[in-house]
């Protein structure tokens, strides 16, 4: 694989300028209407996919968004790329409010915000050659790079580690990992400033995942592109992102730099999430035990989310106050700068084992009591 990058229009390095907010999202809301009734369909409710979300992505930074399915992380990605119209709140891109911008107003910005999709099989047009797929965005935006579009496409293929001679091949001639590289090349074609990557590696095999993660990391560092990295795999997000936000039922419940989130989490849900990740322990002998938290049941429906704190129905620390008062996303005493938590009764900032495991699942409790441990 070719490691050095040759980009004709080398961007000014993001390193020597202080990080400025590239993208600012505040109070973002997206409700999908639920229709019902006969004979006239009326709106009977709303899926509150994203409900009041604040986040900031700085230039050249990689920002991770983790959460379980249905927490609204993909919707967030689609709102930011303006593939969806927000119900409320604002999205500011480089000082410009784009939350309700029209197609025409968005046109110049579209090329700066690109997206990489999860499924490399459905996100590439099977009837177009690789060359056509990658040069498509340039054609639409009327970009004529020096030396012609074909030369640029060949360069891009080389950057993502594909053979430039495969210019005329069709997507079905490539494996899953290679297709995802094509998707990356397409996203890079317009030299974007922000790439929204929605689960870019979760459809790939383990040995291929690492190839794509490394490629994205290389692109992010060497080209200084900001990433909004959306994934459910906590280990992959930890590897890729400098800052991480944890989402639950349409809200960010904790955000901070990587270290704070993974080693000093405060929100009970972050604790539960981290403790649920199955891990390979490589150290010989007794490894330092991690805490064991087993929640009960599944995530509640986003059509009628719980009042107050949304996690309270599965939380072991929930009290009356959690049902009535929604906790604000604030910096707690003892947390680092920028580490915000939305919880009334935060946990200790450690992931080490507790004196007693927290097992909320009734079936597990019953079986484990029966077996005496």
């Amino acid at each position: 694989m070719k490691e050095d990058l040759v980009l004709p229009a080398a961007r000014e390095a993001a390193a020597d300028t202080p990080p400025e907010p590239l993208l600012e999202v505040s109070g973002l809301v997206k409700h999908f209407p639920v229709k019902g009734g006969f004979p006239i369909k009326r709106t009977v409710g709303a899926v509150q996919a994203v409900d009041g979300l604040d986040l900031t992505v700085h230039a050249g930074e990689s920002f991770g968004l983790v959460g379980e399915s249905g927490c609204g992380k993909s919707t967030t990605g689609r709102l930011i790329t303006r593939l969806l119209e927000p119900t409320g709140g604002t999205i500011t891109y480089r000082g410009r409010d784009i939350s309700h911008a029209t197609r025409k107003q968005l046109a110049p910005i579209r090329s700066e915000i690109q997206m990489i999709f999860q499924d490399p099989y459905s996100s590439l047009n099977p009837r177009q050659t690789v060359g056509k797929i990658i040069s498509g965005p340039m054609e639409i935006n009327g970009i004529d790079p020096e030396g012609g579009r074909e030369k640029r496409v060949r360069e891009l293929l080389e950057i993502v580690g594909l053979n430039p001679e495969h210019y005329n091949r069709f997507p079905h001639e490539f494996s899953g990992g290679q297709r995802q590289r094509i998707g990356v090349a397409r996203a890079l074609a317009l030299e974007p400033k922000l790439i929204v990557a929605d689960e870019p590696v979760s459809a790939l095999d383990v040995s291929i995942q690492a190839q794509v993660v490394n490629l994205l990391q290389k692109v992010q560092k060497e080209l200084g592109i900001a990433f909004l990295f959306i994934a459910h795999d906590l280990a992959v997000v930890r590897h890729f992102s400098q800052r991480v936000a944890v989402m639950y039922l349409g809200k960010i419940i904790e955000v901070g730099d990587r270290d704070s989130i993974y080693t000093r989490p405060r929100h009970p849900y972050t604790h539960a999430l981290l403790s649920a990740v199955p891990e390979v322990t490589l150290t010989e002998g007794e490894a330092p035990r991690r805490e064991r938290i087993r929640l009960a049941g599944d995530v509640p429906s986003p059509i009628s989310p719980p009042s107050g704190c949304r996690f309270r129905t599965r939380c072991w620390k929930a009290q009356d106050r959690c049902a009535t008062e929604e906790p604000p996303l604030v910096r707690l005493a003892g947390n680092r700068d920028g580490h915000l938590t939305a919880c009334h009764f935060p946990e200790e900032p450690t992931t080490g084992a507790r004196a007693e495991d927290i097992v909320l699942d009734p079936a597990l409790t019953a079986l484990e009591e029966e077996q005496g441990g």
Partner: protein
Amino acid sequence: MTTVTKAGGAPAPTGPGGFLSVRDLQVTFSTEDGPVRAVDGLSFDVDRGRTLGIVGESGSGKSVTNLTVLGLHDPLFTTIDGEIVLDGKELVTATEKELEQLRGNRVAMIFQDPLTALSPFYTIGRQIAEPYMKHTGASKKAAWERAVEMLGKVGIPNPAERARDYPHQFSGGMRQRAMIAMALVCDPDLLIADEPTTALDVTVQAQILDLLKDLQREFGTAIVFITHDLGVIADMADDIMVMYAGRAVERGTVDEVLRAPRHPYTWGLLNSMPRLDSDLATPLEPIPGTPPSLLTPPSGCRFHPRCAFRDRVGGDRCVTESPALAPGRSSACHLGAEQKRTIFAEEIRPRLG
């Protein structure tokens, strides 16, 4: 074309008495493009109360192996050679009727996607009660009561009411619990779980894995657990078999395989997998290339086109000679035992942090 030393061969890998024992299994599908040997010379044993984890990438033959154990392959397009012996009974040559007696009774399976594995037309309770009625001859009422009892056991709230629900009224995690209840309703001796938690969220996955472990302790079931996730394997299994392109490449207990792996493919998997405690300064080291097509598998060792340690073997043994997987703790690689130990200790282990 190649000299094939039979992997596994006749002797039992973990001594006699394996409850399920598979010897030199070969599964070939005939396809339009020619025969595909999805499983090639596989041998393994599972004992009662133990969990064998089979780990491998897509297309490594891990699922096919276990569909074959249950006789769920399409007999028109599949040729099976070798032996599958379950508690002294040969299954490869068994008739469909004999297999029907086994399925859902002594051997049960949990599939990856509970929504496609459950019938949308019948209530959950009925689907759980049916195999129980069939295999034990219990009355409809007794079978229903048993179904409700099982649903309660796997942690479905209000089991008596929820048994009357249809699968679409259950959430993903609850459906997988219902699948487990269905699999365990006849108290099987062997449970095959094919990626049972891959479609689930991580907090729900943790609940389901713990539930399986606790139930195994209670019923003493033997489990074959298939997954691509090394973390899940580390959590669940007692023994591990690593598969690559239709063959087993490494076998041993969890500690042996994960803490002192001896096969370059296993090293590659560990190197390419991000962990919560890995050192962030070391980049992931992916395995180069892609898994081979089984239509035209590579000669000799099937991993040789992607192997970084090929030149240390010397000669062209890797290309011409297929390495054997000896019984017990073993790895199918031409590198010498001492060589493997030093390579892992000096070059692989430090990278893992």
